[in-house]
């Protein structure tokens, strides 16, 4: 049986681990709050751009701008994989990678853009071509950096280098539930949810310019929203993972404390027996 000192050391070290996991849980909770606030702020902006694009698409069915035209000729496509930069967040990264592999299985002309270190680390070892990687983005999330990624994607799309761009990311549902989705970001498919009023607008300078500029903004804000969703989902899963870890540590500490006491008592009992039997021996 282990001696008391070893057990004591183990209990101490598990207590330290518990403190760390608990702190990580708190940090994740506060970061989750921040991402959620940002999502709420981005929502109306995305909605209005969507409404404007939909109105434009309705009006002009025959001669659609490239950015809205979903009849794709170029078969080459990009899959943008959004993972986290760090681990310790449960199955978050593994699930996305699994889904990505599933998607790539029966496609031949797909190149990758990796956002997040975990996805990049995995896919750089595979035969898929990574055309762009963005690491360490989630530490300090701002709209400008998301915008530069969107611009890069838009350039490749507008140059007709690629015909389609999909984004694979983790949509935030709740702290315990995430939802992995693949969403097409280019060409743009505006949401068809609510009815557009038939107002005929006057456009300045002209319709095509407006469509293109609006489309660009749409991609900017959609990507931003996806990154925020992914970041919220990551923090959510980290929160649950760390909560479980903290709980496990508590269980382990209870168990070890019990064992420690048992060992301590056993050694006291042995000592008493030794003294008693020694005294017996002297008497005789």
């Amino acid at each position: 049986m282990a001696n008391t000192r070893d057990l004591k050391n183990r209990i101490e070290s598990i207590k330290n681990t518990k403190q760390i996991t608990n702190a990580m849980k708190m940090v994740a909770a506060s970061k989750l709050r921040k991402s959620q606030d940002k999502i709420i702020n981005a929502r109306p902006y995305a909605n209005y751009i969507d409404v404007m694009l939909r109105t434009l698409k309705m009006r002009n069915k025959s001669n659609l701008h490239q950015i809205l035209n979903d009849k794709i000729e170029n078969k080459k496509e990009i899959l943008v994989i959004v993972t986290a930069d760090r681990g310790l967040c449960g199955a978050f990264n593994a699930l996305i990678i699994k889904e990505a592999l599933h998607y790539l299985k029966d496609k031949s002309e797909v190149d990758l853009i990796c956002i997040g270190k975990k996805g990049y680390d995995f896919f750089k070892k595979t035969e898929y071509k990574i055309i762009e990687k963005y690491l360490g983005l989630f530490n300090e999330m701002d709209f400008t950096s998301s915008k530069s990624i969107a611009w890069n994607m838009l350039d490749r799309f507008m140059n007709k280098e690629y015909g389609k761009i999909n984004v694979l990311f983790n949509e935030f549902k709740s702290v315990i539930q995430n939802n992995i989705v693949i969403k097409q970001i280019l060409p743009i498919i505006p949401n068809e949810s609510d009815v557009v009023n038939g107002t005929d607008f006057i456009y300045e300078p002209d319709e095509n310019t407006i469509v293109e500029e609006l489309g660009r903004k749409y991609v900017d804000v959609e990507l931003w929203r996806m990154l925020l969703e992914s970041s919220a989902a990551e923090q959510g899963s980290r929160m649950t993972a760390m909560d479980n870890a903290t709980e496990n540590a508590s269980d382990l500490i209870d168990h070890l404390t019990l064992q420690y006491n048992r060992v301590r008592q056993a050694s006291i009992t042995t000592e008493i027996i030794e003294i008693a039997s020694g005294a017996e021996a002297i008497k005789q």
Partner: protein
Amino acid sequence: MISLKIIEPTKSPIDDQFEHVIVPGVDGDFGVYEGHTPFITKIRPGVLTLYTGKKNQTVKYAIHDGFVMVDNKSIKIISECVESKQDLDEKRAQEAKNRAEKRLNSSNADLDYKRAEMALKRAVARLKVLHE
């Protein structure tokens, strides 16, 4: 009165009623009162002026890009960057203006003319809001 919404991706929206609004469009500034014809246009860097309706009282913002959508009861401004007087720093704006002017006056061949010009326009818009 016309209802105005200013929507930005990183801030919560501004939503208020105004008597009329003057917006810097790409093809020139235009004023919007209630009952304006439905209209969509791009914004150029400039000053957005809102008339509250009380003794010509105005609220001014520096605005740098975006779109306006007008229908007869409301005006919606979608922009990535709208700054009020409190958000601005005079020294920084002045420096940015000087920098942009210097770049425009230099005879550098690979000068990104459009970018420098936009920077200058933005700085001028900021200074105008500050000097109200």
